[in-house]
């Protein structure tokens, strides 16, 4: 989780990622930051996020992003 939070803070400084649960809904992460986030996640966790994983629900909070990463790590 710490590694994920560090990535998020690099992509969008100044956001309370520990508690925020509306990253997509509140437009905190725009399309450019999502693209950068996905490529950072792929590199850091050695996973490959597919376009079919790219749905709003998976990106609303650090917890849901972590759940996605863990699911893909298991695959």
């Amino acid at each position: 989780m710490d590694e994920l939070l560090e990535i998020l803070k690099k992509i969008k400084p100044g956001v309370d990622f520990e508690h925020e649960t509306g990253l997509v809904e509140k437009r905190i992460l725009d399309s450019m930051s999502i693209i950068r986030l996905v490529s950072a996640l792929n590199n850091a966790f050695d996973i490959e996020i597919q376009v079919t994983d790219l749905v709003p629900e998976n990106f609303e909070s650090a917890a849901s992003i972590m759940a996605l990463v863990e699911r893909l790590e298991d695959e």
Partner: protein
Amino acid sequence: MKNILEYFEKTVKAYPDKIGFADASREVTFLETDLHVRAIGSALCACGEKRAVAILIDKTVNCIEAMLGALYAGDYYIVMDVHSPGERINGILNILDNPLVITDKDSEFVATDIGKEYLLYEELVQTKIDDELLSQKRKTMCDLDTAYILFTSGSTGMPKGTVISHRALISYINWVTEEFGFNEETVFGSQTPLYFSMSVTDFYSTIKCGCTYHIIPKQHFTFPLNLVEYLNDNKINTIYWVPTAISILSNWKVFDVIKPQYLKTVLFAGEVMPTKQLNYWIHHLNPAITYANLFGPTETTDICAFYVLDRDFSDSDTIPIGKACDNCDSFVVNSEGKLSAPGEEGELYVRSSFMANGYYKNPEKTAEVFVQNPLHNNYPETVYRTGDIVKQNERGELVYITRKDFQIKRSGYRIELGEIEAGANSVEKVKSCACVYDKKADLLVLIYEGAVKDTAVVLEAVRNHVPAYMVPDEVIRIKEMPINANGKLDRKALLATYKTL
């Protein structure tokens, strides 16, 4: 023809019951739009002559109707980015001469926050239509009247307003609709914000040709599967997007999963189209689709040169910007002020009715770039210097090389780094700062020197000063800014050193 609304009136007559405009929450026929805009126009007529109408409404049908309503009253409009900070909105409102502000219930809080008086869209559309008053207004107008002003980011930190007349708008729309054969069967999926010059093309083409104009919800560009479903659900056959938006679908290889079924015309402009990403579209979609690269500044309404793809390009090739549009003379001038020879680099100049009248209340900037034609001095003839360096390739096509100055473009937005720096410099203890753009990584990086330990403080100051698309991706504090031989801040060195930080 002297007023762009004449096209609207023809379209209303020809296709009254056709859906003209649709957003996420509603769709309207041309006739419904007509009734609303004449009501708004009648209300605004009572507010004075040739007023600046600032529209604080998100990209919705409401916003479109407010724009046309302002034109009916003989006013000119300025669409504002309701998501930008109050400081910037006020900055633009303060430049304008006694503006009227229109907002709607959804964005009313923005108008309240900045403490300006405003008119409410929902009330304006209830006004009784006074056709006699509207036609009197029209009689006093000519095609040199201003239709709208588009504000772009200015180098001194002050936004710069490009003034576009009805004549420029009509001339440009005549070209673009004829060149690409738009008609009542054209269905646009509109991506660009209404405060951005590219938005003029699909919107006013719809006004002229009776097309259908769908406003794509912004969120779809983050989640590309939803975007393609949206294109198919609405049978969208024509798009005019910034390359960044087009590339999203390529980078995700979305067409391996789902394909747009109805596309016929794919146009792009606003920044350099990466060929690799475009090739993904070309190789995965219907080969009958027309692709065209459009090129031009806000100061020529939208576009001054274009290239319709007629051959294959490898991923490392550059797509040309082609040739001048009809009724628009685009020519290349070398450093000696003469026409460039084929293959010789020079600055792109434009001589056309597409040209803006100049910048609002900014005679200095206007005189810098709206200049006497350098090729002759026989009579007054104003041309526009684009500041873009281009050359002609061996096929006689124009090829874009770079911007003459530091101005950068990102996702189609023009960004003056100086405006971001002005925000950071507003923090008391920031000693020196510079914003650099790492093109390769697509990162906007703000670097500063000074006794402000928390970079978030500087970021917050910038956030309050500029719209979201200009907020830096990284803020870095360093001990000492590099200085070059002339004693100026060394941006090149800064870009190199930041990468090692």
